[in-house]
């Protein structure tokens, strides 16, 4: 028997990515990179001050000076859309990091300590039963809207999904013989959790993180759009659209440009998430092998 049975555990090669995943994620990565760059360098790129009001330039059509036209306060739409990327990305990243870190910790505890599990899972079921947008607006309306409260309000409903994922992985991984072997080797419980169980969660968590990020950006936009988000002074994609609602018949592009930026941003993240899943999902690998 040939003693080199190749079972690829980490089959991530560049050729693999282009062959199996296709070009859509590549484009998505480029688009997302552009949005990130626009957000970081907004003060340098944006042609105008996004909050400077110019009453004589209200609702102007696109021109050389205002490439996308102006809004009802005479502010430059393009500059506002560029600045809007900042809040969206900040919220997206912040919520993802918090939800993943908190969810991972709770999930590990839940997956390993049976007594805690029963309680934690009931709480998580309860949190999942509450519609995330309703919960978030309730929190924001009580505590007051700032970027931090919005972030916290969006994080809370995202946590249960991470917890459930981590817990289910831990539950199935702890049945693995190598975990039982570690128990027989006298490895302590925290160390088993850290060294043998947690690494199993990384690949699925990466995929889940992209979905959390996309969902957070979406929820933030909904909150802003409903008027329950970050202060209306701040240019966010949701706020721009909320203000433009009244003028929709007159100037629909006031809604469509920020809407497109938002959609593209979420779409790119989702496409990258799908690509990550295709690469990391062990079942897919087994099917291809």
């Amino acid at each position, binding site marked *: *028997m*040939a*003693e*080199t*049975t*190749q*079972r*690829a*555990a980490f089959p991530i090669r560049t050729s693999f990515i282009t062959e199996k995943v296709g070009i859509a994620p590549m484009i998505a990565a480029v688009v997302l990179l552009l949005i990130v760059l626009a957000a970081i360098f907004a003060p340098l790129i944006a042609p105008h001050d996004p909050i400077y009001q110019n009453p004589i330039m209200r609702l102007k059509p696109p021109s050389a000076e205002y490439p996308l036209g102006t809004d009802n306060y005479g502010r430059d739409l393009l500059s506002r859309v560029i600045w809007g990327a900042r809040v969206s990305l900040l919220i997206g990243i912040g919520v993802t990091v918090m939800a993943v870190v908190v969810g991972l910790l709770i999930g590990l505890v839940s997956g390993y300590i049976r007594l805690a599990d029963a309680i934690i899972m009931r709480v998580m079921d309860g949190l999942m039963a509450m519609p995330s947008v309703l919960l978030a607006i309730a929190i924001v309306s009580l505590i007051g809207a700032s970027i931090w409260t919005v972030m916290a309000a969006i994080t809370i409903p995202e946590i249960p999904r991470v917890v459930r994922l981590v817990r289910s992985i831990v539950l199935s991984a702890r049945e*693995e*013989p*190598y975990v*039982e*072997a*570690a*128990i*027989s*080797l*006298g*490895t*302590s*419980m925290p160390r088993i959790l850290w*060294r*043998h169980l947690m*690494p199993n969660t990384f690949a699925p968590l990466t995929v889940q993180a992209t979905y959390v990020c996309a969902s957070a950006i979406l929820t933030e936009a909904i909150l802003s759009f409903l008027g329950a988000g970050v202060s209306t002074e701040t240019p966010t994609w949701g706020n721009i659209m909320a203000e433009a609602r009244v003028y929709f018949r007159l100037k629909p592009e006031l809604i469509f440009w920020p809407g497109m930026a938002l959609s593209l941003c979420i779409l790119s993240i989702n496409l990258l998430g799908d690509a990550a899943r295709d690469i990391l999902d062990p079942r897919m690998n087994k099917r291809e092998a």
Partner: protein
Amino acid sequence: MSLLEIDNLTVAVDRKNGKTVVRDISIHIEPGELVCLVGESGSGKSVSSLATMGLLPKGALKVTAGKILLDGENLLDLSPSELRDRRATRMSMIFQEPMTALNPVHKVGDQITEVLEAHTKLSNADKHAKVMDMLKQVGLPDIERVAGSYPHQLSGGQRQRIMIAMALILEPRLLIADEPTTALDVTTQKQILKLIKDLQREHGTAVLFITHDMGVVAEIADRVYVMNQGDLVEDGPVMEILATPKEDYTRKLLSSVPSLVPRPARASVSKKTALDVSDLNKFYGAGRFLAKGSATHAVQDVSFKVTAGRTLGIVGESGSGKSTVARCIMHLIEPTSGGIRVGGQQISGLSRRGLKPYRKKLQMVFQDPYRSLNPRLTIEESIIEGPVNYGTPKAQAKARAAELLDLVGMPEGSADRYPHMFSGGQRQRIAIARALAMEPELLVADEAVSALDVSVQAQVLNLLAEIQERTHVAILFITHDLRVAAQICDEVAVMQRGQVVEYGPTADVLGAPAHDYTRSLLTAAPGRDWDFPNFRPVAA
């Protein structure tokens, strides 16, 4: 004219320049003949049979050359609908896992009737009568009730009978059976083999029987084809292959089959009791709120001893409780009651912390070599984990790991590599090295060679014997395979439904069994009359 004639068949991975998995094989089967296609994993035996049925997984494998003639008609030239017409009417197939091969959401009777619906225009009454008749022929009891059952309500043997009924109801001239008894217990296997043989004789059906088990071959085959890594090695009438194999590969394969005749008893090396289990009991599933059914008594008053340097085998079929015993001893699950003494120290009922000093005296080798090593740790990291837990300095543990890897016959440079770079047999060696690193007094091997091909199995068994000679470790060997038990164990305990029914020296238990159940296990062992390593019948 042959019934089935496979000419120079080549199957390859369905990709540009895809690797060939079956190369240029030719097989013929005459009407009414039972032909075995035998080989180890990766030999291409299943692929050949799926190619015949036109069931190769789409987009994964494809036939690149050759012909498959059934009654002179090339199946590879047929349109999909023509091929469908041939299935179940002229050729049928049964599979290894009858649980997954039957649709879980339909009643089994309906699943058989469906074959008639697809290929005949019988009236409902005729269909029903035919299905009932077939169920009777495959020896099922209480056929009306069985027909109305879902697959999960039947036993493994019953499910395989249903599969056979489904396959033979239209009296096809060819039945392909792909490892149909591998997932079954040995006593059930015997009944299914007999059923296939009987039906083959009664209906004159030709059977292509795919198996890895030489015992099964000796039991049922008229003619044998041996395959290895996609190539046909040799073929011939069964007696010729078993008695006078021409090719080295076949000889090696046959000599790897452990003999059922117990090996001569070994002189004992020590009086020291390594493990003493007394009145062990384990209940499952008690005390759940609103749970259905009562607790299962998985292990019932089990007692035995293992002395240093000796091997005790616990043999039994699935559900006998043998693995539960092993897991209780390892404290992977808590026994309900009973004593477990290791080196004289009572360890049952100890807390996790109290147990720690004794854990290292007990080590385990698991069944599935693909899951018993953490894929993210290097071999060295896996091996030193235990000693480091007990305070051995890292450098010292690493040096010891290198020695152990050498001892278990791993090539140099293995230490820094990851498990996926090794074969199943090698991983099992690594797992043994990991256990030995703890310098245990008792090694529990739970079906440790069952997942391995027979040639690899022989090597791992030799390794265990060697290690025992050197280190005088006691071994508790859990297995369903009487052949393996006969060759490695000094003593054997036979378990049935949670109880030890017979316990004694291997030569007595397997040579002159006292209990009915042990006897029935022995008579059910396929190929028990043939002494494979010596290419001759067992001397009476």
